[in-house]
């Protein structure tokens, strides 16, 4: 007869489970135990216009250092516009202007007249919706930004290429064909190449404009993993139409609707218990 006293001793898996607990517990929600985050980007009452039509209305938002922030909202809600304000890519479009408010990065208003937009864009990298590797070799793609800055020694370039490709989890896949065209890669690899190209110039902030919208789920998963790894070094802002992606990747989520910031909170709160009914309708796919 088995006695109660001997029962537990026969359980073999038990002893080696307990020690794993602390390690497993690190998978806890990010931010709950983290120290108060440093504000890197401070958007203050921003109004933005495309010609006569207003695209952003009084948007105020503070983004933390080394966090992933997701911008979500229906098409035309201004999330991409705001993203492109952060590295002043909107300058390329005629008739755009910041009518009111400011965007400060590390306390500096980036729309001041004495701000060099070239310097700004070196610090604020961007990854686009449609992967756009240049029709050059993988190596040249990565070194493009560095060469602009005058780096030419082969040793330095080699080092950065390897580092960036490793950083973008692409090194193992392409190390044997660095000098073949970047356009020969698959869609997901191309997008990671673009990320590698962006991190090669060592920006502080990486803007991602729907980086996975053209990728299959597997490639998307890889990019998401990459985002998760990159946030230890970079501050990442991602615009996405994919609710699950925002939920999976981001620490904080901002919901926009027709140019207005409706709700900005921890991602868990936005998806678990949003305070605004519009946000809830949108994240649960019952908008309008």
């Amino acid at each position, binding site marked *: 007869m088995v006695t109660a006293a001997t029962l537990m001793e026969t359980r073999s898996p038990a002893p080696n489970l307990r020690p794993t607990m602390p390690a497993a517990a690190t998978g806890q929600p990010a931010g709950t135990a983290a120290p108060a985050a440093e504000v890197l980007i401070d958007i203050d009452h921003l109004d933005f216009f495309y010609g006569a039509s207003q695209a952003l209305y009084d948007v105020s938002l503070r983004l933390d250092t080394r966090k992933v922030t997701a911008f979500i909202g229906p098409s035309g809600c201004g999330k991409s516009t705001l993203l492109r304000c952060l590295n002043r890519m909107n300058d390329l479009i005629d008739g755009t202007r910041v009518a009111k408010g400011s965007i400060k990065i590390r306390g500096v208003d980036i729309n001041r007249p004495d701000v060099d937009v070239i310097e700004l864009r070196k610090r604020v990298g961007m990854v686009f919706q449609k992967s756009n590797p240049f029709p050059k070799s993988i190596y040249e793609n990565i070194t493009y930004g560095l060469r602009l800055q005058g780096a030419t020694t082969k040793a330095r370039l080699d080092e950065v290429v390897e580092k960036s490709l490793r950083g973008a989890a692409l090194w193992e896949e392409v190390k044997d064909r660095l000098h073949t065209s970047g356009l020969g890669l698959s869609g997901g690899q191309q997008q990671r190449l673009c990320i590698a190209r962006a991190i090669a110039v060592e920006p502080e902030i990486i803007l991602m404009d729907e980086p996975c919208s053209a990728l299959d789920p597997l490639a998307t998963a890889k990019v998401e993993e990459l985002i*998760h790894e990159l946030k230890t070094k970079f501050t990442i802002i991602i615009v996405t139409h994919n609710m699950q992606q925002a939920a999976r990747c981001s620490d904080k989520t901002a919901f926009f609707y027709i140019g207005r910031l409706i709700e900005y909170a921890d991602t868990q709160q936005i998806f678990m218990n949003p305070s605004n009914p519009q946000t809830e309708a949108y994240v649960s796919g019952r908008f309008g």
Partner: protein
Amino acid sequence: MSTTTDPVPPFPPHIKRFFDAELESFRSHLILMGETAASQVRSAVKALVEGNTSLADQVIAADDEIDQLEVKIDEEAMRYMNLRAPIATELRLVIVGMKASHDLERVGDEATSIAKRAVRLSAEPPLKPYVDIPRMAAIALEMLRDALDCFLNGDTEKALAVCRRDAEVDQINKQLYRELTSFMIEKPGTISRAIELMFISKSLERIADHATNIAEEMIYLAKGKDVRHSDELKKNGGAG
């Protein structure tokens, strides 16, 4: 060379996702909860058999730990379902985990109830030597262990066996009932002790029920097939 024998090209290796750790944590918490609950039951029965009130008090105090684990597991499950959008096995794991944690919490409550009764019984001499109760406890704990084993290694055969053993415990419970009833009729002085023992027996029977539930849930987790109230179980239901 016929084309029909061409092998399917191998799938690429799985991608490790950063939130896999969260699922791992969830599993670990569930296992920890199972172990704690089992250990509570074992200690409670031990306290009863040995008349060890301090051990019983420990059991009562430790119930909080299980309650906290249940809260934690629910929280993790909610978070995982909310942010990670699990599907298929992952979804079953999260849902089964929530249900099993509820069962385990109930097991913990029954253990506490046994411990409380053990404290009361320790004040008086034992009604009779404790044979059937440790036997029931041993079976119930074994069932619990097997159910949790199924969670660890997906051994559904063992889990099916758990479901079938439930009847065995029910049998002992009924037998003890009759026995204790005759005690009460013969010696009214034993009524209060007999009632306590009846409740303890009932608790153990319930623990076995919870173990059965967990086993059924684990079968659902492993196979995606709901075996509750199915013929498969009733076929050999009486065997024990």
